[in-house]
């Protein structure tokens, strides 16, 4: 028995900001869910199950908040699943929801991911000291900066590449009304002059801390046939994990990321991602991760990813646009960031991305990662059903 095809027929996001003091956690998720339902022209009654994801519960100080959110998510009397796979969780959550449709357990499901980081301090929430364990240093930047330095040394990339990524993503964000950062006066010089946080990562090359939620309505072929707007079809999806630390781990280009991408490409019949995939929404919390992931995902040979960035290939009008939405560098409600990548990929193939729409894209990759570069989730979406 083959799998049921999965379509994205509704997408909703909040306007991501530093602090949504005007809404409760329930209000925040409700807003995104309502947007997605409106986009699909469906009501709460059409939703059979809800799959929610978020990063550590310490960020809001609520243990397993989905219990409290059952009412706001319209989940009372329905199945409600809560996923947590670190930073990749937004992507993983969408894939768990997609499996409910693919396995024919449900016809139409709502999936949602959120973070309300203003409720706490995310950096220190990630830095809780545990006896007898290696401390994670101060926040995620302290963990990832050495791996960026390793990439620079290994590839010989010039120091400026990171700032090019940040300058591009922050300009893309100006075309995305949902992005957190709208820096209208940004210049490359300002990025390069911003304070050094974790050498070589500067302040402007770092993701913000955001409040936000993202929701999608996923459905089967019958549901897609009733949809008012063009669906995005899931052509492939996969998750891969590896341990945080082990002898021989390649932090620059983790094997789990390569394996995850290979699985997605196999499902979707992608022989050459550089040729067959039109655009990418990838999880770039620190600027240098764009060239690093370009290599890990097979868009460039090892050591060559920075050349694509430097040549402008990943610009909005480039040959392989990356993070058309402004990416994680322009909005980072952590638990939602992966789902935003997945949703932005779907928006592109649906032709619904507004000002940051790339014309004529047929296949777009959504990518998320988390933990110590160890959890990966990805999906490839297309404008057409796989076998049509």
């Amino acid at each position: 028995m083959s799998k049921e095809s999965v379509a994205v027929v509704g997408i909703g996001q909040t306007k991501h900001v530093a602090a949504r003091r005007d809404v409760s956690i329930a209000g925040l998720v409700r807003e995104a869910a309502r947007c997605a339902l409106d986009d699909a022209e469906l009501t709460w009654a059409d939703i059979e199950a809800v799959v929610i994801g978020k990063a550590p519960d310490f960020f809001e100080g609520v243990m397993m908040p989905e219990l409290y959110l059952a009412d706001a998510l319209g989940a009372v009397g329905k199945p409600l699943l809560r996923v947590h796979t670190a930073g990749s969780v937004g992507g993983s959550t969408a894939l768990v929801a997609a499996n409910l449709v693919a396995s024919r357990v449900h016809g139409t499901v709502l999936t949602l991911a959120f973070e309300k980081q203003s409720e706490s301090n995310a950096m220190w929430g990630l830095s809780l000291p545990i006896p007898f364990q290696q401390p994670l240093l101060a926040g995620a930047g302290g963990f990832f900066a050495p791996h960026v330095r390793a990439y620079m040394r290994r590839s010989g990339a010039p120091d400026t590449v990171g700032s090019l990524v940040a300058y591009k993503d922050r300009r893309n964000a100006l075309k995305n009304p949902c992005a957190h950062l709208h820096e209208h006066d940004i210049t490359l010089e300002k990025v390069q002059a911003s304070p050094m946080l974790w050498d070589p990562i500067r302040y402007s090359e770092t993701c913000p801390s955001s409040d936000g939620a993202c929701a999608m309505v996923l459905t089967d072929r019958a549901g897609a046939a009733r949809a008012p707007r063009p669906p995005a079809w899931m052509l492939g999806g996969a998750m891969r994990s590896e341990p945080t630390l082990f002898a021989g781990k390649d932090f620059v280009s983790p094997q789990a990321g390569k394996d995850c991408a290979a699985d997605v490409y196999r499902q979707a019949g992608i022989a050459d991602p550089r040729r067959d995939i039109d655009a990418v929404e990838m999880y770039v919390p620190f600027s240098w991760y764009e060239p690093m992931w370009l290599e890990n995902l097979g868009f460039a040979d090892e050591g060559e990813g920075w050349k694509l960035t430097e040549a402008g290939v990943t610009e909005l009008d480039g040959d392989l646009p990356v993070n058309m939405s402004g990416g994680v560098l322009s909005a980072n409600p952590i638990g939602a960031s992966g789902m935003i990548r997945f949703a932005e990929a779907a928006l592109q193939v649906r032709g619904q991305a507004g000002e940051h729409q790339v014309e004529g894209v047929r296949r777009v990759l959504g990518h998320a990662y988390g933990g110590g570069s160890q959890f990966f989730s990805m999906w490839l979406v297309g404008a057409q059903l796989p076998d049509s």
Partner: protein
Amino acid sequence: MTREIAVVAFAQTDHRRTSEELSEVEMLMPVLHDVLDQTGLKTADIGFTCSGSSDYLAGRAFSFTLALDGVGAWPPISESHVEMDGAWALYEAWTKLLTGDADTALVYSYGKSSPGSVRDVLTRQLDPYYVAPLWPDSIALAALQAQALIDEGATDEPALAAVATRNRAAAATNSHAQLRGSVPQGEYAVRPLRIGDCPPVGDGAAAVILAAGERARELCARPAWIRGIDHRIEAHGLGVRDLTDSPSARLAAEKAGAFDRPVDTAELHAPFTPQEVVLRRALRLDDSVRVNPSGGALAANPMMAAGLIRIGEAAAGIHRSESDRALAHATSGPCLQQNLIAVLEGDPR
């Protein structure tokens, strides 16, 4: 037609009041080895891995990443995690196997309650604006449920004590259980609940292997086929719920096909005695059904694992040919807010 999926192996720790000398990984590893050894599988043979745990119990963010070391996720594995009891990790794995993307799945969950006061920790699960600031603890909320049942005439204190006695007597033959045999009811914890009406606080882990179709028959002499599995949630506000009933458990049981034919065994995740009263009524379990031959959550209640253990115990009964059709139940949230039901069957003997 749907793919047939079965529980083919189950393992658990000896649940204890404290395991302070062990990290979560050290607690989990013997269980993973045990469940893999039962099938002869290695980590690399497993198609999908899914776990359930809680950062709030561990006291650190991303606590499940360390457990992955115990799994030995190298080469990289297809893996996911729910911040829920392992029963829901099993549910996710079941959907994965249904898609045909994998033929086998390893499901595990674990929880250490010993480092903190779980009674207080669980208050952080409540509505953060209107309820959690009042710190109503888990025993107090269960006592509200007990009082509602008593007021309705559905039970009384001696009947609740009998539930506790029967479960712990059953646990006498369960070497993994924490409270076994004759346990005094003791003083009131929160009226009308006595200490004996409450679950033991302890640490533990459990693991299950799922397999599809012929693969299940290769790995297990008598697989416990999952005939149906479903889960439902209720409103969070206790004030809008009827605490004497469990419509979510009943609906999940209906969807899982539990009422199609009688079951011979039921493993109920009822940490407090009044919850067994609620569930027996909602699930229409009469005296012909063996309830909690393992001793249930009143005998061992490792957070995040106790629900998965119910499925594992029900499946193990089928593996041992002591049961032919069993119902397994898992719960989450205050006063049975969220409930999962699985119906397991063995091939005809």
